[in-house]
């Protein structure tokens, strides 16, 4: 009896030892919400980046957010207007829209002291394009001559560097494209085109553990999956110097918790207010809630590889379906006005000069049940009498709006079984079925722009065989107009030609535009001057701490 009590006591002791031991190991990552004035630290919500934080490998918002603080490229998109402005580019000259002569500004360096030269760009682009590095943004270099050799569609690459890139001096290099693309320099603000320091290649693992860039912030500490502390880099030569001391990005599993933390005063900035909290946001935050347009559009795409959806009169059916959707009602009821009913296939962030045209879709995007019924009938009716809208049920509030869209269509067409939602378990599963062309009916298609150009809203989505043309839509007139627009050396004419191409998309109703998505954010009283850029990412360097 005695012995067993000892055993129990020993167990208790062991338990206590484990508790204290694990407690010790966990003491490393304390949170500091400290400082005020120009040295104050802003704490902000973050999601775990899906991919390693390499510029040419980061294709989602969470990783892009960090790259935007760590890197500056040749161009930068104005956080308010979205216009591409020179950053490290002193000049980009071309006479034929094919060969571009680029001069890099003097006096820039990486935060480890290494100078930013023409090589920093050329090496980084070659790395990004090379197939063996399996960079997910490799296609951004696809316009540069020699891409087929370093990144062939099949088989092994026959070259390691792009033949279209030539270093001509310490700060100069030339880029030769494989086709005319007059607005190509405006794409250079995208993170994939960022320069990289030598340590990226020499000590890759070390660089990933603590990335080094040339932007206004440098990484102070990074615990993958939980927190990254960025601090103002005082050697930064750019015009957009931070107005705060740094930013702590904290990973939240659920953005509801981030919002709760903000309301409780433990977090300064939430850059994605969850849909379920939109009801309380005015009461909780007052005017510290931001809701501004972003370069994101939601559409319904169709499987053109399915004969039933690709009939000569199909455009009438699709236009009819578009007119059966009551956009204003859904955006106000389900999204509480964080979406704006779509009036074309681009985004308001482009501005009128950039190609946004709120009259382009016209009647085809306005709820009109009577005409919808007529057009659907003329278009041959819904194949099989029932259509399923596929979506992924794991993220976002897709279920709610898909059900609402179906409701609207069913009401307009006076049929209970015209439309029904088809949830798929995960995003990967959804993408899997989309890319394998297995959709039997319309499916949700969201598009977040890579760069604020009308080209980016049309070519990747509707050009024959384009990377995101998931519905496999193909139209010769559209393709011709896009080619012409790309070759146009005058920007205004190029935009106008793109709009003509967009009219083809409208007439054929290649995809039904639903709504533009807004960026939504909320912040604490101790910070001010908070804004979201057209990519719905906070403009961190402009945030002031009281």
């Amino acid at each position, binding site marked *: 009896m005695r012995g067993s009590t000892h055993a129990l006591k020993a167990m208790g002791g062991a338990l206590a030892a484990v508790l204290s031991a694990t407690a010790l190991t*966990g003491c490393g990552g304390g949170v500091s919400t400290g400082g005020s004035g120009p040295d104050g630290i802003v704490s902000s919500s973050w999601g775990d980046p*899906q991919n390693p934080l390499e510029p040419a490998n980061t294709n989602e918002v969470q990783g892009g957010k960090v790259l935007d603080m760590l890197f500056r490229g040749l161009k930068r998109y104005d956080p308010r207007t979205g216009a591409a402005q020179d950053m490290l580019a002193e000049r980009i000259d071309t006479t034929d829209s094919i060969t571009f002569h680029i001069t890099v500004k003097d006096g820039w360096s990486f935060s480890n002291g290494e100078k930013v030269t023409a090589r920093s760009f050329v090496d980084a682009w070659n790395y990004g394009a090379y197939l063996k590095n399996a960079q*997910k943004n490799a*296609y951004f270099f696809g316009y540069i001559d020699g891409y087929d050799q370093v990144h062939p569609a099949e088989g092994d690459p026959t070259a390691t560097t792009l033949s279209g890139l030539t270093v001509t001096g310490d700060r100069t290099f030339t880029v030769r494209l494989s086709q005319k693309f007059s607005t190509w320099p405006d794409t250079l603000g995208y993170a994939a085109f960022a320069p990289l320091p030598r340590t990226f290649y020499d000590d890759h693992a070390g660089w990933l553990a603590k990335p080094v860039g040339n932007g206004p912030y440098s990484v102070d500490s990074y615990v993958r999956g939980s927190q990254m502390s960025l601090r103002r880099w005082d050697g930064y030569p750019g015009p957009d110097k931070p107005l705060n001391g740094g930013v702590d990005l904290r990973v939240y599993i659920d953005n509801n918790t981030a919002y709760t933390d903000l309301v409780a005063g433990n*977090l300064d900035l939430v850059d994605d207010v969850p849909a379920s909290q939109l009801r309380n946001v005015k009461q909780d935050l007052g005017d510290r809630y931001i809701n501004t347009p972003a370069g994101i559009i939601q559409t319904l795409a169709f499987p053109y590889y399915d004969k039933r959806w690709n009939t000569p009169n199909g455009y009438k059916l699709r236009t009819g379906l578009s007119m059966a959707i009551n956009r204003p009602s859904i955006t106000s009821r389900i999204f509480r006005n964080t979406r704006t009913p779509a009036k074309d296939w681009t985004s308001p962030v482009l501005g009128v000069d950039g190609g946004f045209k709120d009259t382009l879709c016209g009647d085809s995007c306005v709820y009109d049940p009577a005409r919808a019924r007529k057009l659907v009938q003329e278009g041959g009716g819904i194949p099989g009498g029932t259509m399923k809208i596929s979506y992924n049920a794991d993220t976002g509030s897709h279920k709610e709006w898909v059900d609402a869209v179906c409701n609207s269509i069913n009401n307009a067409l006076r049929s209970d079984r015209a439309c029904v939602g088809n949830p798929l378990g995960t995003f990967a599963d959804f993408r899997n079925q989309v890319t394998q062309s297995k959709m039997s009916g319309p499916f949700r298609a969201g598009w977040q722009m890579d760069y604020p150009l009308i080209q980016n809203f049309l070519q990747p989505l509707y050009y024959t065989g384009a990377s995101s043309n998931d519905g496999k839509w193909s139209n010769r007139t559209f393709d011709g107009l896009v080619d012409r627009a790309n070759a146009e050396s005058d920007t205004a004419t190029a935009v106008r030609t793109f709009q003509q191409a967009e009219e083809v998309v409208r007439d054929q109703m290649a995809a039904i535009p639903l709504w533009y998505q807004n960026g939504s954010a909320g912040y604490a009283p101790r910070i001010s001057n908070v804004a979201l850029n057209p990519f719905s990412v906070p403009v961190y360097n402009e945030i002031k701490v009281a």
Partner: protein
Amino acid sequence: MGRYVIRRLLQMIPVFFGATLLIFLMVNVMGDPIAGLCGQIQCDPATTAQLRAQYGLDKPLWQQYLTYMGDLFRGDFGTAFNGQPVTELMAAAFPVTIRLTLVAICFEIVIGITLGVLTGLWRGRPIDTGVLLLTLVVISVPTFVTGLLLQLLLGVEWGIIKPAVSPGAPLDELIVPGLVLASVSLAYVTRLTRTSIAENARSDYVRTARAKGLPRRRVVTRHLLRNSLIPVVTFIGADIGALMGGAIVTERIFNIHGVGYQLYQGIVRQNTQTVVGFVTVLVLVFLLINLLVDLLYAVLDPRIRYA
């Protein structure tokens, strides 16, 4: 005893292989993980092929499983999609979840058994009825409701705790999440102890002990409790594994970056390496704790002996 332990350890081997194979198959049935990696944009075929080769997804499934198991025995759990070795993820996640589980278990033992003894000894009294009602409420309310409610009240309204646990997850911040995680099991432990105590309180050996004139305290702790704890220990033992795997809800609410979080990420991103790795370790934990529980019987009740 020694032979029994060895036999049990050997039994673990087929269970281990079977469980990992099942998980491996299940994750693979979910579809192609590469499809979700490029976001809204379709990865170009060449990059897809390259990634597939990099993660070994281009091989037939049986070969993938064999390679995976081979690597496993060399301590290599593969690489997650964000470029981190899975062992690194485990090193970050398991200490946090173990701490959370221990906090929960402590609550179960201390509060659960105390309440169980009290109600068992005072059956039918107001305290008994009160605790029974309370446990009924706790059992019937889902964990996420309890969690969100406590987070809102203690974290936002009264400002006693931080609504989200900081990345290091220190012990003091884990008290409320631990209580939430423990809540349902705690109620079961209370009820289990109560029934067991009430049953044994009328047994002969307790009457004998009392007749010998032993102090009430000694009768309860040494004679009554010791024999009544056997079913409770079984339950708590089995619960350790369940708590570790089931912490997903609690971890999500309180933003604790533990096993639940990594499993969730792994499943959403269809990351075979992460899911299989973490589940494998959880299976091992389950098996070992089950063994430990069985061995504890012998300590609690010398009549139970294994040949």
